[in-house]
């Protein structure tokens, strides 16, 4: 679009071009300011309990990262839960996405509708109803119930990304594999899965991101287990320690690294 405007070379085109640039930068700044602040205050040499004004640069918080036991445990819990939820969600969501994208079956319409509902249901509602479900089912609340809850709300996202890939998949690819002697399993393993992989990976990353920073649903079903977001919210009143910023920074760096790897890999593959 910009090149077209530039080629036209009209005054209005150039003005539009500049406006578009300004707008783009505005959005980028707006989106990245909170992240920048978070990273910055991980290096803040704070003197008081509150970590809200800049008082000098230090690496102290990186050195003393795991000094707060409750926070460390909460982070470990969060990572464990996120990994478990991601694996489960990716597997189940991929299967769902395959079924919904490929087959016409009784209940397909309902399933599609339920997925949309799962995405659009307010988290408060979902958390409250899950809690009453677990309570009435007499389920011990803790890691397992959190994982179940996270799988439930992240499932729809994986299903949707995978389904989009499946729908765009040329059916003759799989037929070609069968034609060349591949069994059903080989066809899936060697042709279908690689073809939908970008969708699977994107869905998995999304599931991880949703799980690691979920507060609302988790707060209903956690029992006595704390997670990273729960711990932070709990410490707001007494002041959030800079270690939280450091951990946030590291999680962000990990996520960014994964996203870059995924982008590079899919560009090379494509």
């Amino acid at each position, binding site marked *: 679009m910009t090149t077209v405007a530039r080629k036209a070379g009209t005054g209005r085109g150039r003005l539009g071009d500049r406006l578009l640039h300004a707008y783009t930068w505005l959005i980028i700044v707006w989106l990245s300011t909170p992240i920048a602040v978070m990273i910055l205050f991980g290096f803040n040499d704070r003197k008081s309990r509150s970590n809200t004004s800049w008082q000098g640069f230090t690496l102290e918080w990186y050195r003393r990262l795991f000094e707060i036991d409750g926070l460390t445990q909460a982070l470990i819990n969060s990572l464990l839960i996120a990994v478990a939820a991601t694996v489960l969600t990716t597997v189940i969501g991929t299967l769902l996405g395959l079924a919904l994208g490929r087959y016409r079956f009784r209940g397909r319409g309902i399933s599609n509708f339920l997925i949309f509902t799962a995405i659009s249901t307010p988290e408060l509602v979902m958390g409250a109803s899950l809690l009453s479900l677990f309570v009435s089912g007499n389920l011990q609340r803790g890691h397992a119930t959190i994982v179940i809850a996270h799988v439930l709300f992240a499932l729809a996202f994986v299903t949707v990304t995978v389904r989009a890939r499946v729908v765009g998949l*040329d059916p*003759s*690819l799989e*037929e*070609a*594999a*069968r*034609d*060349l*002697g*591949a*069994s059903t399993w*080989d066809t899936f393993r*060697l*042709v279908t899965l*690689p*073809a939908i992989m970008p969708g699977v990976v994107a869905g998995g990353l999304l599931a991880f991101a949703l799980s690691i920073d979920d507060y609302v649903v988790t707060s209903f079903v956690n029992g006595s287990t704390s997670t990273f977001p729960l711990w932070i919210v709990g410490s707001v009143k007494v002041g959030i320690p800079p270690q939280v910023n450091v951990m946030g920074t590291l999680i962000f760096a990990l996520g960014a690294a994964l996203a870059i790897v995924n982008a590079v890999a899919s560009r090379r*593959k*494509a």
Partner: protein
Amino acid sequence: MVKPQVAGAVTANARVDRTSAIELVDVAKEYTVHGEVVHAVKGVSLDIAEGEFFSLLGPSGCGKTTTMRMIAGFEDPTRGVVRLYGQDVTDVPPNRRDVNMVFQSYALFPHMNVWENVAFGLKRRKVAAQEIKTRVGEILEVVGLTGREKRRPREMSGGQQQRVALARALVNRPRALLLDEPLGALDLKLRHTMQIELKRIQREVGITFVYVTHDQSEALTMSDRIAVMNDGVVEQLAGPREIYEQPATAFVAGFIGTSNLINGTVSAVDGAHAVLSLGSDDRILIPSGSAPGQGEAAVITVRPEKITIARQRRDQEVSQVRGTVSEVVYLGTYNSYVVTLDGGAEVTVFEQNAMDGTSTAERGDSVWLSWRPQHSYALRGA
């Protein structure tokens, strides 16, 4: 001039000492779409010989792809039997049928390079690594892609992708290769090159080719035999010359090349010919073997290039009809005339261009058209 009957005779002879590679016995396929039954294929019987270049030709939606997919095993016939080398494979899944298919969209695996694509089938069959290497190398040489092993499909041109698809199927040495409009996505020039290539490759590897196309000139130039399909049935099954010279039905006559259809009544049958009368001086001679009985209505077909256009009536034992030129089109190597007969029918005539570039008649001229008796064919079921 080769007599049209010769082609038929050759096919008939060839049928005596041959192995049947693919046999369809009254195969039909019905789909149910929104509660409505669609008859895609309505009972097709074919017997394709080993080593034959066999074409399924017909307009869009006539059931060519469905027929081919039933041979490959992707569709279960609603009724009928599919045999490969005499063995009933109707219930055998595609991965255990010894035929390979070249898809119209090529269906190359996008995440594999050329070498991996071509080796796919051999690996599934657990062929030894060393043999895979030689066979892939050989077949890439046959299709002229040596040196491109590391390329991904999307890094290749349409023609190259087409050849990868061909190599991927041929490397398995299937007993038959099924090609569904394999040249459909290519431009005209590349199409012609690939037609010649395909013929060469088929000769070299000696595999039975079943070729789906809706391009009649492609089918005529490449095939040993052609099944012309329409609306789920085979209208005619014969060699290219016979299909062209002796179309069995009005559909075949109309679908293959330009053809003239003329209606009339049989007024007399003598020894060699039946006579179709149209008007006072007009008469069309039909070889009596194919003609209906005296007094019956008949439709005959005659090819535009068989007709001679002249100012005067010729005094010979030939078909002669009178008409008025309603259109003359100069087409380079020949002229095309549309002549309206006195009875109202329109007849197209091709005339080789004369040395001096003039045409025999102009628009509005009254002309006589004539052609030899053996070039009139009475159509079946007309």
